[in-house]
């Protein structure tokens, strides 16, 4: 059996973020998934994927929030909780800072039928995420950075 490379372990942690972004994932939990120490994990994740674990988690939550704003009639508060934020104020501030408009304004602009509906889920999740967000630690619910 081949030796499992660090990248493969790190990918398991990134997959965990993609599937369980709504949970309060923190650095020790993600590092555990990758079978490395939290310190080593954070540095290695950034080297391999080009952003910190916290940035990746935050960007995934924002991508899912944009998707739900666009395709559902859930309230902003419901979406906030659905994607892993714990405070509507924090969610609105973070969303506005990184997307450029508030969740409500985004919904007005992009809600309803779209060409994006043609894209399978995995491609949408891969391409609609905006990498590298999270320079500011607005989301106090997570410390995966």
């Amino acid at each position, binding site marked *: 059996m*081949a030796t499992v490379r*660090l990248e493969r372990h*790190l*990918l398991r942690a990134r*997959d965990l973020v993609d*599937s369980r972004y709504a949970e309060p994932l923190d650095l020790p939990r993600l590092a555990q998934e990758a079978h490395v120490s939290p310190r080593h994990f954070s540095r290695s994740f950034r080297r*391999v994927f080009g952003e910190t674990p916290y940035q990746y988690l935050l960007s995934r939550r924002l991508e899912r929030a944009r998707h739900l704003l666009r395709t559902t009639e859930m309230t902003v508060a419901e979406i906030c909780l659905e994607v892993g934020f714990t405070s509507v104020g924090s969610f609105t501030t973070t969303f506005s800072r990184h997307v450029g408009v508030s969740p409500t304004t985004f919904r007005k602009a992009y809600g309803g039928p779209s060409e994006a*509906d043609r894209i399978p*889920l*995995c491609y949408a999740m891969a391409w609609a995420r905006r990498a590298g967000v999270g320079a500011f630690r607005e989301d106090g619910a997570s410390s995966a950075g």
Partner: protein
Amino acid sequence: MIDAISHVNVWVDDQEEAKAFYTEKLGFEVREDATLEEFGGYRWLTVGPPGQPDVNVILSAAIPPAIDADTAKQVMALVNQGAMGPGIFRTEDCRKTAKELQERGVEFTQEPDARFYGVDAGFRDPFGNEWRLVQPIEYDLETVQGAEANGG
């Protein structure tokens, strides 16, 4: 004119481990498994789903002389970090197949989820290659979009 896709390549770290995964866990059959001494021990290994004999997955080891050692390392690092997702498998029943594969220890990245095009799940092979598992449905995009516009 090109008539069909017959082979697709998937990079793997270990061909024996790959053969075990694709046959024992995914249920594929081995199509060809030849070690060619005249090619320095190169192993030509192909597998495929039993119901589709004309499409083969080549399980390739990234090793010299096909590619140099440094490039091989880079290729496999990309595979291991999930940057080389290879494709989509079709199934008649995504939830049932996903359950069967999970019971065999296949690592799912996404549980079956109903989408406009069908039920969709995702899993990885032991090396990081991501495959999608889709139970397609007939759909009309105009209808899908109309339903979404009406909150459906």
